[in-house]
């Protein structure tokens, strides 16, 4: 009730020339027209499937017959499913160890590439290249061959007297291999770190040098706080990304999550449940649980970020 007078008053008090309004209307229409392809895609390919997946997560659905409503049964069964628990363990291991290592590598290389040296352009592209091709199927195949029995890695290590055998078939080694693979693909966060490093005013470092600060002190007191928004962004993106690992695990384990379930990542198990076992309702429940968990983790990150992320203009 209070709104309509406000609206009419605003309309009355701010009369706009009709010509301009028509122009604006045309602008808006053009804007929406350009937006339309994306909007259609978003509704048809993202929102629609998400809603139907949410519905399916409460059903027993085998892809062929009509879904049967079973309430929260899928969610309840999940926690009695040993393979599900195993997949959670495998994925957590990967996220907890892989992500920080990858970010550390990205930051270290970004700092190396930030200094003015000859041929920096070449090095920057060279270090970025792996992440361009890294997500591709071919790289997973190459890694599988490299870490296989009597592959280059096995041969190289045995040259130093370390005989581990192939990593691919050894359940105790596959996680290490998967983490190495993700660390090696540090290009994307590295580029973002590089951009962040470029933004740090050099006079800060000059002033610190004057006061006699060494490289470690400069890193702790200047680089880290100045870079913290970028670190936060990278940490968030890479964590979410790590939860979604699929293609490399699928290729390396022949789509089975083996050996002995050591590469049974969450998304891989989800896929197997859906498409190998025809249990789409169960897979949908897993998908939604993942959305919720990633959402909670993101929330925690944002809450705790206040204590260590510094934005310029913050009164601190």
């Amino acid at each position, binding site marked *: 009730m209070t709104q309509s007078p406000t609206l009419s008053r605003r309309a009355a008090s701010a009369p706009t020339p009709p010509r301009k309004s028509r*122009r604006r209307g*045309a*602008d808006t*229409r*053009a804007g929406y*027209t*350009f937006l*339309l*392809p994306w909007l*259609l895609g978003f509704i048809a390919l993202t929102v629609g499937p998400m809603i139907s997946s949410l519905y399916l997560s409460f059903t*027993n659905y*085998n*892809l*062929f*017959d009509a879904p049967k409503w079973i309430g929260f049964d899928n969610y309840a069964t999940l926690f009695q499913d*040993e393979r599900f628990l195993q997949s959670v363990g495998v994925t957590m291991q990967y996220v907890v160890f892989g992500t920080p290592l990858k970010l550390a590598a990205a930051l270290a290389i970004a700092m190396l590439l930030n200094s003015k040296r000859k041929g920096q352009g070449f090095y920057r592209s060279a270090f970025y290249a792996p992440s361009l091709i890294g997500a591709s199927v071919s790289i997973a195949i190459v890694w599988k061959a490299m870490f*296989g*029995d009597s592959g280059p890695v096995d041969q190289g290590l045995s040259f130093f007297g370390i005989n581990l*055998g*192939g990593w*691919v*078939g*050894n*359940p105790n080694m596959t996680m290490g291999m998967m983490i190495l693979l993700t660390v090696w693909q540090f290009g994307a966060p590295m580029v973002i770190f590089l951009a962040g490093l470029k933004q740090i005013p050099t006079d800060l470092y000059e002033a610190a040098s004057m006061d006699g600060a060494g490289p470690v002190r400069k890193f702790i007191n200047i680089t880290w706080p100045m870079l913290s928004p970028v670190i936060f962004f990278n940490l968030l993106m890479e964590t979410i990304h790590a939860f979604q690992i699929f293609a490399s695990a699928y290729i390396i384990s*022949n*789509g*089975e999550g*083996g*050996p*002995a*379930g050591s590469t049974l990542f969450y998304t891989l198990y989800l*896929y197997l449940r859906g*498409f*190998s*076992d*025809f*249990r*789409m309702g169960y897979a949908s429940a897993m998908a939604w649980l993942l959305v919720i968990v990633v959402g909670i983790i993101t929330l925690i990150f944002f809450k705790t970020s206040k204590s260590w992320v510094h934005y310029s203009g913050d009164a601190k």
Partner: protein
Amino acid sequence: MIDRRKFLGTVALGTASAAFLAACGQSSSPAQTGSAENPVTITYTWWGNDDRAERTRKAIALFESKNPDVKVNGNFSDFAGYWQKRATEAAGGGLPDVMQWDLSYLRDYGQRNQLLDLGTVKINTDAFDKSLLPSGQIRGKTYGIPTSTNAFAVYYDPAKLSSLGIAEPDGSWNYKEFNAFLTEVGAKGNGTLFGGTDYTGIWWNFNIWLRQNNIEAFTDDGKLGFSKDDLKKWWNLTADLRGTAAIVGEDKATQLLPKSPFGSNVTATEVTWDNFMAGYLADSGAKELKLVPVPSDDPDNLGLFLKPSMLMVASAKTKNKDAAARFIDFMVNDPEVGQIFKTSRGVPASKTQRDGTTFEGTDKLVVDYEKSIEKYLKDAPEPPIVGFGTLESTFKRVTQDLNYGKLTVDGAADAWFKEAEDLIKQNA
């Protein structure tokens, strides 16, 4: 300015909606019948290795030359990926027109109306053994036509055995003797040659053992016909062999994938289907491989049967029923197709194809093997229960865990039964 924007807007809208309509709309040409100038295209998919791909391409080329009004688009993948692709396609309503099929998945798709009832089209089955056809039928409807038959066997490489100074087996052995044989190979193989793969990890081998003990795997009402104790007994057969040179380590076997340890010359024997001969020869480069019957504790009951090694099926939604039926008929009956595949799909199921094929060398070994076990053969099993594909892969996975030492026999049996009971309940 405004006019240009309007113009741009209209163009953008037009392009977007055109793209959208193109994405949504079905292809509007019904193309039910083709001609030599304008052939209809059917898609065909199969699983297998390069050897089978080569033979299949030859067969397709032959079909196209005899049927200029039909074009066949073929593609293949390995067995594991094959079923995941089919599930995706079935969900989207786009199964290939004609498919190579496995008995394990016939009920899943047939019972759920994804496959064409081949009784409604023209396929000649006169030359088929009448006891074989029911394995492609569910509730009186024919969903699959067997291309060929296979039987379980023990493969061995005579050259490898003689280099180790071990006598060739004759196949009249019980499980204890078979285990002793594997152990001897492993001991003399000196770390480079292992006895075999853990034969208890193959569902069909377990099924044969059940038959040897006069137990049915599945009951008529879709339940399990054996007990947890039976399964434990089975997995305990190789309990002493796991982790020794008698059985190749699971880590090694995993690394060799997609080839088998036997195909990679890592083991001297392999217990599996007799139609793997061509594939094994191609993979291993061995001169000769031989076949003998599986072990049995009852010499009069080997539990063996002829199974359709592969079936040809068509999608229920195919738009080219006639072309699909002609292609299936050609693939199962044409003598020249038999000549192309020899025994690589198994021994041809149709008599016309069998008679039209000359079996020499290793192919003759496969045919002779099936002849030699004729007196032990019992009826082929009906298509197993819905969801059997999952049970079969769980069976393999659990045995792998057993070999990795991650599970005990009791734990493995519990794990498999839990999955099986859950699955039967799901599909009830």
